[in-house]
């Protein structure tokens, strides 16, 4: 089942092999290809590149073509202020004060940036046949607000007929856009109408129901699926939104997913949402994102549900965060890992792992969910088990299952984030992927060689002889003979007794000082608790 099939089935509440996942990549696409939001949203080429990059990085089931709720408004004469990191903002309202819609320009495919967005849709469709393409259109109420400005709220009260006429006009614009997106190959037409969250159900029914229902009927009659996107505090409207007849309702973090689930199921329509954008996807860690995504899936259930953020991803959302959500969705076992880790306390004690890498043996640790029940963990353990005898007594290996508290403690002490992971002498070496036998042998051998080198170099030391030249003359001669007899390569350094006093704390001369190099680490910055152990050895 490819992503497109999965989305289509989920929209129809048919069984799917897993929950489909749609990251709403809008200006985040610009970030992925190193461009600014303003140039991105004004170039079909850049949008196509952004969509392709997002599909490659995130392997989503569906992808919006363009997330810009100012597109139609601009084509109808609203002035825009462009931003490098956000979609543009509407800064003028051609119908302000209640002017007639008759003054608005003709709306066609050549208006504003519409042709380039449609071109991007067509090219993205051709380039990614296995991904469901979403054509996003500005909902009738939000478009009306762009055209009229915030006078709309007072005019709903004072001149309801005018507002109804305006909404009928903007619904017509939505139908045009839907037709064009469908022609370009989009599978889903999402009517994005966040401003409806500002009104209550009575006024929704009075003003919004008819125009929006007509848009959804139109989309259905033209063979595409529809979604009603709304963000903000719109809980009061979910029921009336369902009554407008979309195939899907998609919401953000302001509305409890369980609430939407129950209402949508009652109406037999699918639903989507509601990953938190700011605190989790933008500011959280990959682990936070996975945990939150799992909560959403657990709440929503796997039928008739599409996992998605509540809105357009912030431009600089960390790529690793979005990837981690996809990984969780595609990988059942990753869900088990997240569940297992969720049961552990937040503040784990950390082990002192100062001894790692210090013993003669090489220690191989495998951090697993549980090798008996988790296939990737089992294969990783088997790989180590098979390789270890090649090194006879030199290699010792252990499995640490995170189903036990000890395992989790060990995991956090080694700063391991993914399961399964192989650590060699406390260093993360293989993450998630089962290494081929030769690669594992090579990695262990490399570590053995490093230790050998360290030990050889440790043998190098020097003799410091402290005293006056007269005092030292005979001692130096005898020391040279002794070194020669042992066949050692050790240098002799002489210093005056005065220097020796301050450097080595000797009280009488002549004095003999053995200096031995103990290399504790190379090319890494050891942790403070490790340093502490090394320092103790000198006390």
């Amino acid at each position, binding site marked *: 089942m490819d992503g497109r099939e999965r989305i289509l089935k989920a929209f129809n509440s048919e069984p799917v092999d897993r929950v489909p996942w749609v990251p709403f990549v809008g*200006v985040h696409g610009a970030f992925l290809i190193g461009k600014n*939001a303003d140039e991105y949203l004004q170039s079909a080429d850049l949008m196509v590149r952004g969509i392709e990059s997002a599909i490659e990085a995130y392997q989503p089931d569906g992808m919006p073509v363009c997330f810009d*709720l*100012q597109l139609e408004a601009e084509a109808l004469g609203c002035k825009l*202020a462009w*931003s*490098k*990191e*956000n*979609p*543009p*903002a*509407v800064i003028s309202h051609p119908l302000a004060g209640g002017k007639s819609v008759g003054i608005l320009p003709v709306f066609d495919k050549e208006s504003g940036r519409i042709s380039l967005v449609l071109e991007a849709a067509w090219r993205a469709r051709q380039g990614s046949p296995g991904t469901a393409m979403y054509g996003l259109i500005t909902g009738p109420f*939000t478009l009306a607000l762009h055209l009229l*400005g*915030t006078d709309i*709220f*007072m005019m*709903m*009260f004072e001149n309801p007929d005018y507002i109804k006429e305006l909404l009928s006009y903007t619904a017509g614009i939505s139908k045009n856009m839907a037709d064009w997106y469908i022609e370009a190959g989009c599978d889903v037409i999402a009517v994005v109408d*966040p*401003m409806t*969250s*500002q*009104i*209550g159900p009575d*006024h929704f029914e009075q003003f919004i129901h008819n125009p929006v229902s007509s848009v959804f009927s139109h989309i259905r009659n033209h063979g595409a699926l529809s979604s009603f996107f709304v*963000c*903000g*505090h*719109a*809980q*009061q409207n979910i029921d009336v939104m369902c009554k407008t007849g979309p195939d899907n309702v998609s919401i*953000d*973090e*302001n*509305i*409890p*997913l*369980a*609430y939407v689930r129950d209402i949508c199921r009652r109406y037999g329509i699918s639903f989507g949402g*509601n990953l*938190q*954008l*700011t*605190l989790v996807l*933008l*500011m959280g860690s990959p682990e936070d994102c996975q945990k939150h995504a799992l*909560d*959403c899936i*657990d*709440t929503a259930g796997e039928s008739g549900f599409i996992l998605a953020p*509540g*809105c*357009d991803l*912030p*431009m*600089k*959302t960390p790529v690793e965060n979005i990837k981690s959500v996809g990984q969780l969705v595609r990988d059942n076992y990753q869900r088990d890992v997240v569940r297992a880790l969720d049961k552990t306390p*937040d503040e784990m004690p950390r082990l002192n792992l100062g001894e790692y890498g210090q013993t003669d043996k090489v220690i191989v640790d495998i951090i697993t969910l549980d090798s008996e029940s988790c296939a990737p963990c089992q294969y990783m353990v088997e790989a180590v088990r098979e390789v270890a005898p090649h090194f006879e007594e030199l290699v010792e290996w252990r499995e640490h299952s995170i189903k036990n508290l000890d395992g989790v403690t060990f995991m956090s002490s080694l700063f391991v984030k993914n399961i399964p992971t192989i650590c060699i002498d406390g260093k993360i070496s293989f993450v998630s992927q089962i290494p081929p036998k030769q690669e594992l042998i090579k990695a262990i051998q490399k570590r053995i060689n490093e230790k050998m080198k360290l030990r050889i170099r440790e043998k190098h030391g020097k003799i410091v002889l402290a005293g006056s030249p007269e005092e030292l003359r005979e001692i130096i001669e005898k020391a040279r003979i002794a070194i020669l007899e042992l066949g050692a390569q050790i240098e002799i350094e002489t210093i005056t007794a005065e220097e020796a006093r301050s450097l080595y704390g000797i009280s009488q001369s002549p004095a003999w000082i053995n200096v031995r190099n103990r290399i504790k680490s190379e090319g890494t910055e050891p942790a403070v608790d490790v340093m502490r152990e090394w320092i103790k050895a000198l006390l």
Partner: protein
Amino acid sequence: MKIPLILVTGFLGSGKTSLLRQVLERLGPRKRIAIIQNEFAPGRVDSAELEASGIPFHLLEINNGSVFCACLLDDFIVRLAEFLKTYQPEAIFLEATGLADPVSLAQVMQAPEVSKYLFLGGVWTVIDSVNFNKYQQYVQRVRHQVQIADLILFNKSDLAAPDAAMTEQINLWNPTAEKFISRNGFFDNIEESISKSMGVHEIPDIAGLKESLPRPDIGSCVIRTQKVYTEKALIGFHDENKEIIYRLKGYVRSRDGQALLVHSVFGRLTIEKAAYWDGPTEIILMGPGIRPGLITKEFLKSGENA
């Protein structure tokens, strides 16, 4: 020391600019004040009017592409951090424009880059006493702004005194907020309210030296979650953390679909049914040593999936 951020909300034309002018007149001569507002939003605070007052302040505009979505603010975090370092304001007033979600804005302030500099000192909501009855029927955001406030001003009292129906409605939506009648943004308790939101009230009043005494470093946190809570879980969370929570306020969803109004000041917790809350669980915490990441984790652990 962290500086207070006061969120000023209110629907279009309610009198936010007049209020800020009153605040500037009182605070401006002795503190460095910053005002943050949305660059393109209609009905925003009129910076020209404030500048005309002659009282110095620093202005930072949120260049957000959308008047209705506060989620696209990642570039703003960087700009704000830079702004705080450059101007080192001693108090910030963030104007949440008429249609924006103020809680989303407050959440953005929890980004590590800026939360180390500031805490949420208070949420002030200005009500247009003349037009409230009309707007509140149409615009859901008006209710949300009232519900999350800890100070509510019935402004334009010279044009229309708040009637009984309006007062009753506001009290139903938010029984715990302090409420004052104001005219052109001025109200009798303005000095005390400013001090309170600046965190000055958190230290003992010794011979009127409040403002010169060191203030414990206050942190704040806004949590919005889909989790549901039992009263027992809330009491447990509160008791565990009451040493570090000076104030807690918000709405919490329970498993049976009801909403609870949770309110705590210096360890005195009250929980009651909230008849008019239809959003998710949403709480604001303030107190010494509050670290948003840790307290959020603890609060989420106390809840259950819906």
